[in-house]
């Protein structure tokens, strides 16, 4: 297996929030989704996902609920809270500005 690309500090939160923006998801599914959507480029360190989830929950951006998983097991589903949604928007805008700026610099230089 290829070594997962190290995530830029702080981007894990953004990826988690974006992943669950459409529908509540459990931890495993979040990891899968990030991998699939990024065409296998971004490999989330699976264990590290959970402290991040707990922290986001603690901060009130996301909330958790136990529910039935697709294979009929009890799983903890995370969903975005209202302030979490706003936070995601502002963080996403920030990220886009930043990456566009970096892109500009890289093209010129």
């Amino acid at each position: 297996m290829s070594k997962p690309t190290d995530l830029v500090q702080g981007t894990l939160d953004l990826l988690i929030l974006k992943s669950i923006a459409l529908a509540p998801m459990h931890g495993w599914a979040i990891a899968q989704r990030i991998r699939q959507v990024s065409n296998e480029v971004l490999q989330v360190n699976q264990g590290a996902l959970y402290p991040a989830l707990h922290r986001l929950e603690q901060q009130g951006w996301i909330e958790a609920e136990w529910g039935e998983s697709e294979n009929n097991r009890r799983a903890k589903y995370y969903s975005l809270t209202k302030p979490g949604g706003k936070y995601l928007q502002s963080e996403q805008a920030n990220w886009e500005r930043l990456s566009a700026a970096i892109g500009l610099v890289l093209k010129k230089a």
Partner: protein
Amino acid sequence: MRWLQSISHRLRSLYRKDAVERETDQELRFHLERQIAEHAATGMSPEEARRAALLEFGGVEQFKEECREARGVNRFESLLADLCYGFRSLRKSPGFTVVSVLTLALGIGANAAIFSVVNALLLHPYNFHNLDSLVRVWEDRGIDEGYDERYIAPADAEELRSTTGAFEGLTTYSMQSFGLRTKGDVQPILGCRVSANFFDVLAVIPVSGRLFGEAEQQPGADQLVILSYGSWQRRFAGDPRLLGKTISLNSRIYSIVGIMPKDFDYPVPAELWVPLALTPAEKADRAQLSLNALARLKPGVSVSQAAAVLNNFSRRLEQEYPKTNAGRATTLLQLRKELYMFTLPLFILLQAAAGFLLLLACANLANLVFARMIGRQREIALRAALGAGRGRLGQLFLSETLLYSLAAAVVAIVASFASVRALRTSIPVGWTKWVPGWDGIRVDGNVLAFTILAALGVGLFLGIATMLHTSRVEPNKTLKETGTGTVTRTKRRVCNALVVVQVMFALILLVCAGLTIQGFVRLAKVYQGFEPAGILKIEISLPQKVYADDAKIANFYQQLLRGAASVPGVRHASLVTNPPASNVDDETTFFAVEGQAAPNASELPSADLQIASPDFFDTLKISSVAGRVFSDADSADSARVAVIGHAMASRFWAKEDALGHRIKLGVQNSTEPWLTIVGVVGDVRQNWWNPVTRPVIYKPFAQAPQRSMNLLLRTTSNPASYVSAVRDVVRQADPAIALRGVNTLDEEIADSIAIVRIMGILMGIFGLVALALSSIGVYGVLSESVAQRTHEIGIRLALGANPRDLMKLILGQALKLTGIGLVIAVPCAVAISRAMASLIFGVVSLDFTILGGFTLLLLVVALGAGYLPARRAIGVDPMVSLRYE
């Protein structure tokens, strides 16, 4: 709302810890199972799938811990653990715990008790609405007239009220003593005559009944009275149907129209208020400053703005009425500040002393804690080696020191309930009834908050000091060492600095204590000019109805004096209006000297007026300077005479003999009779705050009989044993008369200076505690440092050092530390005693004997504290001390 959710989360993580832990387990297990299933679907064997999933996931336990951290559980748990650990370590060394908690409790408790007084006197002496906008207004004649003499002329007050826009309201009042008739007896009661708007300006309303109306301040319509809550309770047993009833005051009938709320007694200690009904002539008077005035500033008007307005006002009056108002300046002072007199400064001084005591206790305890920390160095090094950061160690120390200080606060609060009550009752009511807010002294929310804050401050200070002290622990070095560990140079320096600080505060406290006690001793001696020992004092006041004319009054007292003088063991019996040490100023009177016209009405000379029977001067052994004293020949029918004090004679007749000159009470052209001066007597200190050289005029009782007099007896044995004999004499003269204020003059004097005595006692206690704490501190640090040097001393001795030189070395260290402390403290002590001298009416003055004496005492104590450990170290056999580690 986010923070709310976050808190509820955090609390859930804390209190439902097990459930949350289980959920995390479940969550992670679900993840792993899904991952295993995923791998199994690609054809791996179950074993391989499991291995791969675990590898991808990483350290499960580590992530669980990170999850806990993310939920914020750890900080709480570690704090809890630290508190438990702190508690256990305190319990493990009960001696240390008890000593440190008690030391701190003493310091904190002293502060709490004194603060309860300052709190009541300074922060809410009155609970008037918007106290800061109330000001006292008076006319200053350029002479320092003191607190009791701030008056305004009625016409000026009226003009001030109607013409200046600075005040929302201005009211006038005047204290008056009344005789309240109850069942044939007349009791003295202090009241106040007030303008109709008095209560409006103060913004108070009666608990029942009504206030006075404008029309009721006319002479004739003014026989109405409002009672204080206290007098309603005490004198009328809280009678619920009292309103509308009548009482007799000074033989006039007054109907009760209102009762004021419980805490209202302005101006203290008034028990009733009647309308201030002035005649048109009195209203138009500009010459006599006869009324007190109180005003409320308009919102937005500052005190200095109002002062400027008053300045213009007095200048205008000066021009309009130069005859009466020349040289008068209308002045104002915030009511709150007027209270900052006398009693409060004493307690602020005590508060400062208590603060020093607490600092000293902290320094002392810091030394103890450091000494303990040196023993714990290995433990701390081990903790550091296991990964405890500075913050984590700091939290450990802080939780330990906060535990002591909070335990001390609990002890202090429990003790303060008793000590505050003791403090409140330690000063006789005769004094404290004049102090607004005194009855409000209690352990209230402010005092509790102050105590807890002080304790937290102490805990923080000690914790942070410990943290800094142990911050340079190097685990590598410390853990390799054997033995008890060593002390670095910096740490030694910190300990030494603490000793210096302790010596400093000890000297300051001792000097303050010494000066206060010296002041008290001096005060006890200020009552000069008479001999208080062996005097019995009894107050007598006759009911006006029965004793309606002078002849009856004179007759009663004549019989009383004759009877009292014939009691075996009574050498002299006499009457006087105001005996010394009564805590009441003499009545003062203006007087005119025949042939000496006063330049203007506002500059009439004034003097104290005393009325005395012939034997008074012999009773108190007041010396006769010139002429004669009164005799029985000075009767109601004979020529009017007066005796004056020496100070008055030398002020008004400096170059000639005062005898034979005539004076008149009041103004030159009044109808009062001329009094011929027949004698000059020695000056008497009336109250300790009065200057001894106040002019005083004595009139013979026979020529000016008064219903209320003080009977003074000079007895040959213990004066208190004559009370029942005197009671019989009074009963024979009139069975309806009650004896009041029975006391020996010695005790009266002791009571009158009780406040300074209490100060002296408290300061003395603070001083002794300071001395004890600092001696322990010096001893502790020196014996610790000598113990550390036992090895070195052994080597020196083995190499042939002279024990006397070694002794000098150690004593030199003691002297150096103490000396530095003293050098810093002496100028501080000088400055503080200067401040004290200005606070306490010249009772206290800087005294170099006291300063030098205590400096010497502290040096001797330091030498003693150094000598003991030094002797021990030198006495040890070098062989033993060399093995000592």
